[in-house]
């Protein structure tokens, strides 16, 4: 009986622990209210995507190209950057944030504060593939129109 219990513990426990890490532990390492945006760079097609690019999906599911990423004025933002294939690099030129290398398979976090409303363009800063020019996107920070924009 002890053997069966041990096996069940492994089969149920391991996915639970991993799930907990991904959805609770990794989120709560930042102050409450932090907006976490996960962006994965995919060289094929030159795409930044918010899709979960994992072993199961990478080979046959085309990633969805990211649209504008909405933020609110005053948000503390953590961008969790991932690369699904090759070395990419992330930068938000207007904030002088980056370039930050994103080695293949690594997860790199960068943080910034959305201090003003407006549009922040981000892009891959390194020629990663023939479709590199497609690797760009925008954070759109909503706020009071009277405020000074970026």
């Amino acid at each position, binding site marked *: 009986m*002890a*053997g*069966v219990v*041990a*096996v069940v513990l*492994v*089969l149920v426990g*391991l*996915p639970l622990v*991993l799930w907990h*890490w*991904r959805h609770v532990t*990794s989120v709560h390492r930042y102050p409450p209210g932090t907006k976490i945006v996960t962006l994965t760079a995919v060289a094929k097609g030159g795409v930044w995507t918010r899709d979960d*690019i*994992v*072993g*199961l999906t*990478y*080979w046959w599911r085309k990633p969805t190209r990211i649209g504008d990423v909405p933020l609110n004025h005053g948000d503390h933002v953590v961008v*969790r950057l*991932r*690369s*699904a*294939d090759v070395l990419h690099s992330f930068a938000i030129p207007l904030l002088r944030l980056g370039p930050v290398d994103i080695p*293949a*398979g*690594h*997860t*790199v*976090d960068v943080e910034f504060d959305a201090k003003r409303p407006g549009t922040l363009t981000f892009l891959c800063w390194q020629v990663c593939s023939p479709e590199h020019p497609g690797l760009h996107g925008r954070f759109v920070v909503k706020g009071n129109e009277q405020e000074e924009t970026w």
Partner: protein
Amino acid sequence: MVTANPIAEATVPTEALERPWRFNLFARWPWLKRLVRMRSFQFLVILPNLFMFYLFIISALFGTPVGNRNIIIVFVWILWWFMLIAVLVPFGSRIWCTICPLPFFGDWIQRRAVIRVRTGKSPGTENSFFGLHKRWPKRLSNIWLQNFGFLFLATFSALLVTRPIVSAAVFGILFLVATVLAPVFRLRTFCNYVCPISGFLSLYAMTATVELRSVDKDECLKCKSKACIRGSDKGWACPWNVYMGKLDRNNYCGLCFECVKSCPNDNISLFVRPFATSDVVVRGYDEVWKACIMLVLALTYSVMLLGPWGRFKDWANVSEARNWAGFGLFAAGQALLALVIFPGLYYVSIRLAKWYARADSVPTKELFLKYAYMLVPMGLLAWIAFSVPLLMVNGAYIISVASDPLGWGMNLFGTADFPWTPLWPHWVPFLQVPILLTGLYYGLRGLHKVGRRIFTDPAQLHRSLVPPAALLVGVTLVFLKLFIG
């Protein structure tokens, strides 16, 4: 002074052909015997492996698709492979089979128990097994399926060792097949006849420095219960269907230690023995072809994964390069080399040996089977030589992946960002060369040992050794050319 008989002098004394020394480990370390006699022993060693296997599958499905950041690729194809081929097989025989998680659920279904033993009267045993308990077809009761299975997997190795999902698919299928076969066929049919990993383990276990054997074979012959193969209330019937009274090779003993538990005479022990010296008998064409396939694959892997020829890499890496014609050429060439050309060369060397030694009375088949032993230590050492740079060049990935097994951004041990640092790559050829030469030495030594069992006349013996020895030297030179240019 007694006048020497020239014929008797020229004849190799049979005492010299006796088995080499062996050292009884259970007698030296009784705690080891107590450990393996524990009913829960195998379960306890499989459980951590089952955990890891499960983590590998989850990681392949839900972790990063990047191979060198995913634990299934790094731990299986760098760490496990190296440990298996360079440590576990030569020093532990089939100890991997003791801890292999693949047949775990199959065993569980078959035995309806994880740890305890059920007594009963399932055909041929003293245990109660669940399922149809059918016999595996006689025509498939060999390692041909394993030969073709391994060759097939090797054809896709460029994908297998770099794509987490491909590795997970292969291991998942093996796991399913092992589980599905268990309630249909008796005992470990999957391990004995289907598992492609088991196939090469069986061959190279011949060289291992340990063996599980009866202490006194006469005791086995007197034994009425034959509990080692039939089982008892203390241990399950041998999952590998091996009778200890006749066991003289490591090939098909999976080291589950059930026989140690069930033997009523306490007559089974684990022995240490010299490397590549005791089991020198190759029995059957399936084993000869296994030896050929493994040696050729060590060669083609060295070309494809270590060599500077980008074209071959592109051919093998079909999912990226999409060069189907090239892939077809690579697959067909590899199969032809492993199944026809190299065995053909070996056959020619045997015919030449027979002709040169004027050994008309020795059947070609006997020579062909027995001299094939030379390929076993050579093949194993060639695989080790191939695997050394894998660990030395890519071993740093183990350190980083241990901290972040799924590429999710974890940092369990603070080493997630450990940089890729090859370990003394300039020393790789200096390690590969002696390893290869060791393989050549043991191959030639084995060839000589086997030859002495066939030929009593030393002149005839030495003549018969020349052509196969030349082939072995030729193979070594090809490997040396690949490794050191």
